């Protein structure tokens, strides 16, 4: 197939870097998409291979290939873990720019706007990546700029902002998984919502014997960014008799989407609600975990569980 470099003018500069990726696959474990689907073709290495294939003309710029490049939450865990120093998300963004110019836009994880959008422009102002704008007809998203952080979804009062391909990170999905855990484990007490930076993966892709998980007291659910936490999501586990809910987000100044600040406000507001109905507000706890600090994360969970055990169930 003929070399396509001329058509990929943004991606072209990464030709040498794409060779430097030794394709070890150590990025798999850090990717929430790979965790969710289990397909190698959803892992970061797959996007690097796709970028190489597009650039070299070994694969056609198809909708399927574009969908892979546009499916990324930009948590950048893969990038931080890459010992070959490959700036994965910068490469993805440049590939996206070229694909957009060819008329291929995903959707991937790009946020979209439903027709019932009220055009209040809240999402335009809130988008930390300047990806949302009014195009004269309605609210549109620049797919090359969108980093799928989900802040637009959180601020949209009409529920019109959506990420359709959410890879298990949508609010409804998380609520359902929390509910399943709480209703199927007699020992269950808490749900931990963690952003992808505060959580360090334990089991990468394997399933423990049922006997090992029967006595689990808590479940960790990755919601990508603290900015995607909503009061409704944090409250939902209590409908299934959770004793408490913890949310783990990045420390101040370290969240690339400023989602931790939004999470703080929501938890503060919930504390006030809990106080007003005479429930101990400490049943909802927010912790800030520096990137990959597995020890602190576990210590915070242990402390929280100790507190819940002292408080007992909500009566």
């Amino acid at each position, binding site marked *: 197939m003929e070399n396509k470099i001329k058509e990929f003018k943004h991606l072209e500069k990464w030709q040498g870097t794409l060779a430097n990726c030794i394709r070890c696959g150590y990025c798999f474990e850090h990717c929430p998409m790979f965790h969710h689907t289990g397909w190698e*073709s959803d892992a970061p290495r797959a996007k690097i291979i796709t970028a190489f294939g597009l650039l*070299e003309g070994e694969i056609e710029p198809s909708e399927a290939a574009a969908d892979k490049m546009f499916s990324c939450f930009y948590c950048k865990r893969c990038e931080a873990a890459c010992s070959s*120093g490959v700036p994965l998300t910068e490469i993805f963004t440049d590939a996206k720019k070229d694909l957009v110019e060819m008329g291929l836009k995903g959707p991937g994880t790009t946020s979209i706007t439903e027709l019932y959008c009220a055009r209040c422009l809240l999402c335009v102002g809130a988008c930390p990546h300047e990806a949302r704008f009014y195009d004269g007809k309605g609210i549109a998203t620049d797919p090359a700029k969108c980093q799928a952080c989900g802040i637009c979804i959180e601020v949209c009062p009409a529920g019109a902002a959506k990420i359709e391909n959410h890879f298990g990170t949508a609010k409804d999905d998380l609520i359902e998984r929390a509910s399943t855990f709480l209703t199927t484990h007699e020992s269950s007490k808490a749900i931990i919502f963690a952003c992808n930076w505060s959580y360090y993966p334990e089991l*990468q892709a*394997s399933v423990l014997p049922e006997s090992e998980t029967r006595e689990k007291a808590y479940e960790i659910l990755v919601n990508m960014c603290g900015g995607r936490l909503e009061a409704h999501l944090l409250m939902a586990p209590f409908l299934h008799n959770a004793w408490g809910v913890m949310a783990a987000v990045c420390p101040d100044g370290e969240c690339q989407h400023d989602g931790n600040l939004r999470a703080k406000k929501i938890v503060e507001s919930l504390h006030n609600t809990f106080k007003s109905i005479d429930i101990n507000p400490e049943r909802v706890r927010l912790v800030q975990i520096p990137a990959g600090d597995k020890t602190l994360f576990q210590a915070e969970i242990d402390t929280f569980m100790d507190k819940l055990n002292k408080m007992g169930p909500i009566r």
Partner: protein
Amino acid sequence: MKKIDTTKLKNIVGGHNIKTDPADLYIYGSDSSVHHAMPWAIVRPETTLQVQKIMKYANDQIIPVVARGGGSGMCGQTVPIQGGIILDMKKMNRILEINLEDVYCRVEPGVVDDDLNLALKQYGVFYPPTPASSRIATIGGEIANNASGVRSVKYGATRDAVLGMKVVMANGDLVSLGAHTRVEASGYQLHKLLVGSEGTLGIVVEATLSFVPIPEFRCMGVANFDVLKDAGEAIGSIMASGATPSMLELMDSVAIKAVNKTMDLGLKEVAAVLIFEADGMVKEAVDYEINKMKKICEKHNGQDIHASYDPKERAKIFLGRKKLFPALSKYDDNLASTALADDMAVPYSKMAEMAGKIHEIAAKNNIIMTAYGHCGSGCMHTKILMDTKRKDQWDSAKKAITQVYDYVRSVGGTTSAEHGIGISKAESFKIEKSDSLNLSAGIKKAFDPNNILNPGKLAQAPEDWVTATNLRYSVNS
């Protein structure tokens, strides 16, 4: 290319477990090697019965089937050189049983090595083969390659840990091999034969593995050497002394520079370092082993020898060693680290000469090669760092590899210690095993009469690895 009946395959595994779009096929056409070839379909079974049905269909239609785990193979073992079905085993990922009383566990092939060790850790035991890629490598892939790693010097390779397995044969039949016991005297020990067969004899759908207690004490030492040969000779002396290291690793100046650059490891930039470790349940016994190895290093001009029980210090060096392969790509921004001629083994007494030979051959061919590895178990790794766009660099790499393997065989060594043969190493493998190739071909025929299981690998691979498949790099003509 044969037409695949995707409807039939969908009926077996469900539509959500099959992919045929060229964008997906392209991704599954490569692994961590230099090779690339397009499969015809990706099929992801979830049960043994599904694997049996897929194999029956493939055998009836004579369609190649390549089983795939994490895709971290370095010689092209999972690159579908003749097309066919990639059997992605990652969904068969259940740890079925942890039997502490009988000291074994049963797992499905898609279980990730580190995941298994996380599950075992709470019981104070571990599964020891641990290749550097253990965070991604699956047990099935490790069995296929007889994987080993830094701890193999004391605890052995995958073959030593496999007690038994269930295998789906080429025609779809299911057989149980081995047992749940430590010893088995009779018969051909077919489960051991499957280990290292690179998916050419059957599809492993369940494995019974032994594990060992996590030692109470671990102490790691680092010795610096100004002369690479001295470090190599120290390895031979340590192993000949009767010492029992739990890790004995060599890193040359290229490897040291790469890990320091990538991970800020703070190793001294000398000609070579030896990293040695001893473990055990009694501290005095560990001290004894460490002191013994320290003295041998001193005798061979090792300097600034430091040993520590501190888990953080040990973990930092251990992680640095595990990430050495990707780190080598940062040695020089213009050079890529390629997985070529990367895991030969030589007798201990030849370790020093082997390390020197690698550098000598690299200089002669105007490329950069590094010498490192689990030298305590006889394994010497190298990687070729080169400008992959330049065709002349590939020509040089080919010459260098031939020269390296000629030396390895001349001293009684072997082509692959732990990464397997796949496509990249077939040329040397076939020379090394020339008088038993017919015997191996007979075994292959008995297991897989239609030659559908990972065809074109091991002895069936083309002689010239450069033209065997498309290279996954862009090479200027």
